[in-house]
């Protein structure tokens, strides 16, 4: 399949995707579950891919994603609350010290940059640790960041433990799709660049990678900082999606959720992470919701169905994937137009030979 046709088909597919989203929004209405799932799915896809860049592609087992999402979400919210409303939002801190507001896109980029700065700070002591210690250390840092942001003395900046709200949000699902799409494209280009290959080498065999002249620490830090940048952007998008953001919600259980999305999708597969995100959000927010509702068929109550059952079914499915289907949906294969082309031509060739 020539490069030019592949580019053409690619852009066609992307255009079809955006048209589909636009259509879904028009038909199902902006407040329908379908649009909500599309929006949250896109945001979680970006965050899952950013975590996959770290866990799946560089082999660094980090559990700090919620911490960097929190930094991103708060940076976005703090710098975009309209000045008029600051007095009411920062009600206990006399309107807070930040009195200006930034345009949306600039604030989203700033969210990523601040999260990346935190990652550089965190990365220095943490990246020399072995895999399981790295996991616990990054988990610890996420908890420390959450405690610091809720510190009362920082109230004028972060509004302490109270909600941040009334900052601008997106009103069409195309916005998170566009931002997430661009970011995932950048991550894909990084993975296919020489630096991406170096990260994959580190994942496969650190000693051999170092013997081939790859500076382990610098490349791990690069991967860690970039992953946190996109986690920050994802956090900003999540803040826009929710309309309100509070440090207390960014617990380690949020990181576990994203890790399990990456595992279901397949460690080391960007397509896997994207697919798994939409599947995970669709199931948890929409399709499996009926498991929580006490439904009656005639007079008899369907057993087991009551609030919380959805999450139990979910955790059992995830354990099944982790134990028996370890490669996840896509393993480490990527969706590629060549693969599909070959599949098509394969059929034709087989057909031809049969004659």
């Amino acid at each position, binding site marked *: 399949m020539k490069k030019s046709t592949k580019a053409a088909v690619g852009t066609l597919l992307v255009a079809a995707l955006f048209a589909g989203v636009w259509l879904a929004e028009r038909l199902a209405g902006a407040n329908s579950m379908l649009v909500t799932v599309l929006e949250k799915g896109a945001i979680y896809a970006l965050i899952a891919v950013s975590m996959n860049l770290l866990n799946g592609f560089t082999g660094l087992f980090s559990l700090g994603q919620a911490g960097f999402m929190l930094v991103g979400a708060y940076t976005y919210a703090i710098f975009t609350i309209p000045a008029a409303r600051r007095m009411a939002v920062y009600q206990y801190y006399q309107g807070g010290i930040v009195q200006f507001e930034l345009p949306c896109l600039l604030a989203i980029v700033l969210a990523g940059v601040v999260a990346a700065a935190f990652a550089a700070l965190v990365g220095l002591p943490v990246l020399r640790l072995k895999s399981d210690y790295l996991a616990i250390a990054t988990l610890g840092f996420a908890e420390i960041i959450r405690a610091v942001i809720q510190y009362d003395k920082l109230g004028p900046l972060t509004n302490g433990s109270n909600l941040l709200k009334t900052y601008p949000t997106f009103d069409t699902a195309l916005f998170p799709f566009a931002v997430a799409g661009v970011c995932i494209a950048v991550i894909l280009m990084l993975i296919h660049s020489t630096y991406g290959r170096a990260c*994959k080498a580190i994942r496969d065999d650190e000693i051999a990678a170092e013997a081939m*002249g790859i500076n*382990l620490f610098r490349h791990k830090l690069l991967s860690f900082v970039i992953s946190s940048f996109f986690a920050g952007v994802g956090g900003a998008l999540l803040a826009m999606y929710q309309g309100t953001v509070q440090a207390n919600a960014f617990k380690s259980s949020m990181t576990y959720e994203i890790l399990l999305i990456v595992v279901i999708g397949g460690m080391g597969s960007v397509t896997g992470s994207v697919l798994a995100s939409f599947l995970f959000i669709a199931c948890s927010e929409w399709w499996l919701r009926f498991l929580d509702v006490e439904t009656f068929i005639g007079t008899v109550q369907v057993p087991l169905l009551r609030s919380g059952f959805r999450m139990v079914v979910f955790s059992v499915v995830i354990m099944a994937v982790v134990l028996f289907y370890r490669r996840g949906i896509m393993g480490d294969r990527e969706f590629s137009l060549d693969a599909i082309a070959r599949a098509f031509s394969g059929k034709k060739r087989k057909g031809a030979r049969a004659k």
Partner: protein
Amino acid sequence: MSTVLRVKDVTMQFGGVVAIDNLSMHVDEGEIVALIGPNGAGKTTAFNCITGVYEPTNGEIAFGDCIIARSHPTGKMKKLYAGAHADKYLGARVRLSPDKITRLGIARTFQNIRLFKSQTAFENVLIATHLRRTSNPFTATLHINAAEERRMRERAMEMLETVGLADSAGELATSLPYGQQRRLEIARALATQPKLLLLDEPAAGMNPQETDELGAFIREIKDRFQLTVFMIEHHMNLVMDISDRIYVIDFGRQIAEGAPAEVRDNPAVIAAYLGVDEE
């Protein structure tokens, strides 16, 4: 002919166990030098000290005029230290990490093959060209360095052709037969454009016919890329055939050194290998 690699009084101790004891060697430019000795004599440990994987307990290693490792026993090791020259290398300790040593120009292969298992043969060699990149993360990600990328791919393909693996470039590295994996490791090492090539038992597991081809191959790449080769090997005919000089070590100590002919009839070497018959 300048000295490419100089190992001075190197001792390596793991706790109380002495792996290398006061070893001194040198390799001159353009030479093929072999390091032989019975199993467990400390050959691979010596390689690991040279390539920065281990920090030697005592002694100094220099590559050309740049010191790549220099240390003296410290802390607990002071009491445990059993080697000599404990006072000769006091002062600032130097330890270059393996990637910096590779950047200086020392490339190595591994005794037990360490290929990147999820990558194809071509990608394995392509990763080794990463070292000589001029692009930074931004230009690389945005593919502004397309010219450099093309050059890297050409060089990787060239290395594959040199080792005769061009046609299995797309195969997964670990699915290649054993002999080809060995040659792929050499191609990967060559891709870092080294001056000194360290081969760790390149002929291990090869039949005699393959070993002869390997000997010719090593001589050919030495001339073609103006390399110096320092090799650990057990196949005696390969060693005797292509090496200019041989070091023999046993229980971490050097027991003989010299041209292949001298070493072959050296009684100490025979005893070390074949053991002394009890009269």
